[in-house]
């Protein structure tokens, strides 16, 4: 059973016909070619597939594409602005907050939403904020550092 749906992805309206059982993660990756969203467990634990649904982080591997018909999505491909990398992206590079890069899109989306809601998070708030995402490479220390650094950059640039 297939259905045509409309998604606004990274500001662009996309129409796509998908089987109703199609996961949002697969729709983004394989139907829309946005392979920056990664799939690490397909049971909602690792957070690699995190995207922003109407601005809020969701697990795209636990979401059917047809369930978000008509909604707006931001993926890692949509985080950079016209002037280049977003503060969160720049902070991750500066602080060495990524190694293999597989979990990174999920962390970037999560941190972007976190800092939008709380521009000056405490140490515990950052820890808590990123503690729904797994990373097997970095040990998280530099990810946490990067989120704080991103907050700094955003404050400097606002």
């Amino acid at each position: 059973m297939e259905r045509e749906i409309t998604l606004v992805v990274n500001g662009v309206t996309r129409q796509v016909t998908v089987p109703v059982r199609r996961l949002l993660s697969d729709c983004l990756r394989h139907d829309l070619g946005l392979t920056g969203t990664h799939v690490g467990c397909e049971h909602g634990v690792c957070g690699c597939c995190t995207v922003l649904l109407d601005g809020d982080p969701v697990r795209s591997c636990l979401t059917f594409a047809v369930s978000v018909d008509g909604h707006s999505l931001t993926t890692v491909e949509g985080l950079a602005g016209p002037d280049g990398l977003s503060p969160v992206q720049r902070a991750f590079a500066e602080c060495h907050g990524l190694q293999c890069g597989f979990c990174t899109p999920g962390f970037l989306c999560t941190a972007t939403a976190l800092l939008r809601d709380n521009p000056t998070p405490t140490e515990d708030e950052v820890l808590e904020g990123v503690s729904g995402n797994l990373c097997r490479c970095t040990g998280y220390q530099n990810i946490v550092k990067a989120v704080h650094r991103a907050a700094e950059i955003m404050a400097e640039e606002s």
Partner: protein
Amino acid sequence: MTTKLFGEPVQRREDARLLTGQGRYVDDLGGPGTLAVAFVRSPHAHARILDIDVSAVLDVEGLVAVYTWEDLPGQLAQPLPLLIPHPALTHGRTALALARDLVRHVGEPVVMVVAEDRYLAEDACALINVDYEVLKAVVGIEEAVQSAQLVHEDVPGNVGAHLVQEVAAADGRDARQAIESAPHTLAFRLDIERSASMPLEGRGVFARWDGRDLRVYSSTQTSTSVRMAIAAKLELPLTNVEVIAPDVGGGFGVKIVHPWPEEILVPWAAMTLGREVKWTEDRREHFISSAHERGQVQHVKVGFDGEGRIQGLDVTILHDHGAYTPYGIIVPIITSTQLLGPYRIGAYRVEFSSVYTNTVQVTPYRGAGRPQAVFCMERTMDKIAAALGLDRADVRAANFIQPDQFPYDQGMIFQDGRPLIYDSGDYPESLRLLKELIGWDTFERRPGLGIGIGCYVEGTGVGPYEGGHVQVTSDGRVHVSTGLTSQGQGHETAFAQIAATELGVPIERVSVVTGDTRRFGYAVGTFASRAAVVSGNAIALACRKVRDKALRIAADALEADPRDLEITEGVVHVTGSPTASIPLSTVAVLSNPLRYSFDAETAKATQFAGTASYDRPPIAEGEEPGLEGRDYYSPLRSTFASGMHAAIVETDPLTAEIRILRYAVVHDCGRLINPMIVEGQIHGGVAQGVGGALYERMVYDSHGQLLNASFMDFLMPYATEVPHIETAHLETPSPLNPLGVKGAGEAGVIPVSAVIASAIEDAEGFPIDKMPISPSELFHLRGLG
């Protein structure tokens, strides 16, 4: 060398693409027409296949092909290779790409399904009926040793390998004699459970066949060897096969094994069907059909004097290698050789039996047998200290190899088949730094608060070799390639730092390609903390060849002596006279005499440009066109990095929860190429170590079912579980290689279980001999107390 980048915390050149979703991992490849593969895997740990009925799937829409073992031709139907034979591995066994009559662990592939997409392929898998006669499963080391049931009918006692290694004391006595006559002795048992590499990207293979050439993308730690394996298994000329490791989402050891069944089956399907074919491992598949590590039981006897100096050590190891041994017995060999750590002990005897069980095969996971070795030795040190009432750090110091004793020969053969000779190190200084960092001497223990310590030595940079190719093109760009692969270690940055420093060019002009057999065909792979050492030095040597050639050509053009020239910011100039200069881009043009021009720069090298001498051929004897060089680095033996960790741990008096309050690391990997990257490697290693110490285990039931084969149940640390890691570096250069570097990739993980056990023991006052340890296990131990 004014463009000095070696040793600087240069930001990573990989990051721009990985931060914007432009990375290319295996599952990102292939267009809409790419076929998807799924596997029917054994639901039983040990069973005989009676019948495979695929009739129900034949009408499934979107199904393209179904294959069982009977469909596999020639070499493909033969057992997978035993990659590292060893005389002690008398009963090595490997799996078939698809099971024929017996399955020996849950997850073993039985049927391959190819369909228009993965959803349809999995639909079809669900309709295939495999009839099994279930056999008794062998689960756990003790059951394997009892051998009431055999995993392989032709392997008596379930023992795949048995090896005894002995190093006598200086006076000729063996370990058992030395222990018998020692003033003090102890005997105890230690247990370490299974964990796994668990990269967030599982394995994956994408293959494309054009009728003559096969191109395979694999999420592997060794593309060159996958290429050779595919050529052999599919009986293709090597030159018609190319293998590329694209961006790889973590490896940590598991992806060094090859060829995986899927790595040969997917390319074969692509050839058979004439279509692009892809398989992407899902998480459950990764748990039950890739590889695990760590599981060992160790029986230890030690004899020592009143100052805690070890006079004899006798260790018997039972190592669970799972159902098959494709990677040989590297893990227990590393355990038994690296057990000696930074210590100079009297006599040593180590015996291991590597046994079969009906569980997922065991192959190296970051640390590769060392965490178990260090757990053994460091628990031993703590027990000696406790027995004598001495400070635990003092007992270690009493046993250290001293800085003036290098090179230090431990008298054994290491995992690379070469002597276990430590090249350099400064263990007393390392301990001094660690004690200072953690505040060892001022720490006040109390019930529920303990401090722990662990020391290790890691053989890194094993051979046989790696190579590097460096080419300067006429646009001034520097193209570096090496055959080994990358899984997030920042090789594109570290190797570019080496090349930029060696050649005197801005790093922005340097690009690095790894793991692509189209660019470099000879390599071994990324494992054993070897990339920086072996490829790093090969690239440096290749750069030196290019530099020499550039200076020869430039000297000719500038009418100068090459010895008076240097390269700065990509320009060759006479030392002290910046005006007499020529850019490397022009040197590259001059290095390649042309008939045809394609831009103003290359016109300078064409035949009527008036720059060539009539007295010699355009390419002088002994020269080659192009400003490029290739060289190899083949280490005499491994170089030995070292480190020491300490932790302060709090245990809850009521709930027995375990909290790491502080974690300190002193690390010595010789000269640092990029301290930021090394630090990141340590952080990640420690986090995996914390997982192995407190959370991660593979829980098999008595039927061989892996009960926690998901991220819901296999607990990997999140940010909230990993302590802040404080680090200090010591740089004891390796005398063995031109750059003086040692490996750093695995270091962080190695001593963590030992350190945490040491700290919990200190906090609780009773021995911690089994890891990982959960709050409920600690609670239980208190009850026994």
